């Protein structure tokens, strides 16, 4: 096999890890609360700025800045839930989706207001590994590793803990959870916190690889939605698999075509597949 193609495939795999992490958070929120956070990628953007700001301007150690950014994303997500979603929990789901779209605008413009439209990066250059002629960026490798750790952590939380079981249960039958003595609103708050915390983690991994600017959410937000829908909204395992399918299409497509064409390919693949199987790849 062509060595550059192999490199593309490996890079696709690494990209898939971060996409998977992003889709896990979004899927968790959707599965439990039945809300699509259109502004999910903007929460990521905000957390990327947080890392950038703390690290570059205040000179915090990177790990500390990342931890703070995760906390920041969590608080931001809680605000989104409590201020925007809670008041309209009873109205049509599409209204909730649109309300988070307003949050998207808000965060984007606020970032423009605070930081301008410049592209900013941490100025960290991590080494590039060479393995038998294949070049792999170290930052991508770290991102992939941490994304997997995050995914495993979420999996353990959901399968091994009381609250995690409750989160899975509420996604299966909302009403009966009340009969178990569960205040569903508290589970919603918890879910929003975890989902946005994952967004914060993803932000830490993305800021190592990409420049941050106010509109960065628009570049990978749609891909994240696509991954979630493809896996079946709310289906976390499906989303996990879909993340790797989509990232391979983009990576391998990007090897043969210009990168936008590769993304077009991914979106077209998505549209076609959804129109054939609206329930997602793993749906019944």
């Amino acid at each position, binding site marked *: 096999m062509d060595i550059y193609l192999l490199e593309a495939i490996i890079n696709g795999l690494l990209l898939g890890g971060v996409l998977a992490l992003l889709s896990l958070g979004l899927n968790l929120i959707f599965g439990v609360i039945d809300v699509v956070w259109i502004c999910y990628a903007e929460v990521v953007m905000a957390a990327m700025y947080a890392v950038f700001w703390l690290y570059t301007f205040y000179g915090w150690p990177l790990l500390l800045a990342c931890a703070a950014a995760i906390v920041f994303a969590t608080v931001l997500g809680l605000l989104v839930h409590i201020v925007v979603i809670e008041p309209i929990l009873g109205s049509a789901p599409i209204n909730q989706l649109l309300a988070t779209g307003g949050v998207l605008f808000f965060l984007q413009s606020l970032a423009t207001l605070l930081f301008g439209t410049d592209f900013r990066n941490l100025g960290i250059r991590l080494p590039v590994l060479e393995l038998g002629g294949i070049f792999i960026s170290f930052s991508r490798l770290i991102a992939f590793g941490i994304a997997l750790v995050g995914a495993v952590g979420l999996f353990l939380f959901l399968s091994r803990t009381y609250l995690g079981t409750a989160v899975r*249960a509420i996604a*299966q*039958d909302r*009403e*009966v959870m*009340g*009969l*178990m*003595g*569960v205040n569903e609103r508290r589970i919603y708050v918890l879910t929003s916190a975890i989902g946005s915390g994952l967004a914060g983690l993803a932000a830490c991994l993305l800021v190592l690889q990409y420049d941050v600017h106010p509109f960065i959410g628009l570049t990978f937000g749609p891909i994240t939605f696509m991954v979630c829908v493809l896996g079946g909204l709310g289906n976390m395992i499906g989303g996990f698999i879909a993340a790797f399918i989509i990232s391979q299409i983009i990576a391998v497509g990007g090897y043969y075509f210009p990168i936008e064409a590769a993304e077009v390919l991914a979106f077209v693949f998505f549209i076609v597949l959804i129109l054939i199987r609206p329930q997602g790849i793993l749906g019944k």
Partner: protein
Amino acid sequence: MTILLNLERVSAGYGSFAALFNVSLDVKNGETVGVVGANGAGKTTLLRVISGLLPPRSGRIDFDGESLAGAPAYRVVAAGIAHVPENRRLFPRLTVEENLRMGAYLPAARKAFAERAAWVYELFPQLQARRRQLAGTLSGGEQQMVAIGRALMTKPKLLLMDEPSAGLAPLVVEQVFALVRRIRAEGFTVLLVEQNVRQVLDVVDRAYLLETGRVKLAGTATALKQNPFVQQSYLGL
């Protein structure tokens, strides 16, 4: 005997549709009380109102010295009422044991989980072997056991059961009523809703007959069995 649950002139409905009209009913400590009636008589609505899934439009609901009218479901559970819902409503993609875990969500029950689970498995030995199986893969009768077991995890003062025999094969229905007798014998207070009038009257102390959202008749099981109206309309005699 003290009155555990007391409903006074409770009305409820969905949107513009009214389902219950001024229903008054009481359950005393240690009793097994039935609510019978045809499909659409308001039986399920009655239980939903008691357990807080549907707020009443008017009327009083008192339970063990507390007013529960309009309280959210999770508070009603904490007060000591467990509800085995219509169609069992298990979490199909959780295991049997995880379903029991959800039943023991309240802090007090959570602490006593191991002990309570052991007791439920003792009550329903069949479930012991299936504890790691997904609830959605069980047979109807076994699912009913899990649903009851799940509700018993909090050691409720009052157990509400909604149509436990619905959708089950006749042989299994027999088993389910045997279960109700067992739970009775364990000393639980039960409010049982059923369409299956004949069998209910064999297991309860007293019963209420609902028709189009109103209490049409009330009395001891024996009295109702001998009531000409019940015999003609519900027992087919």
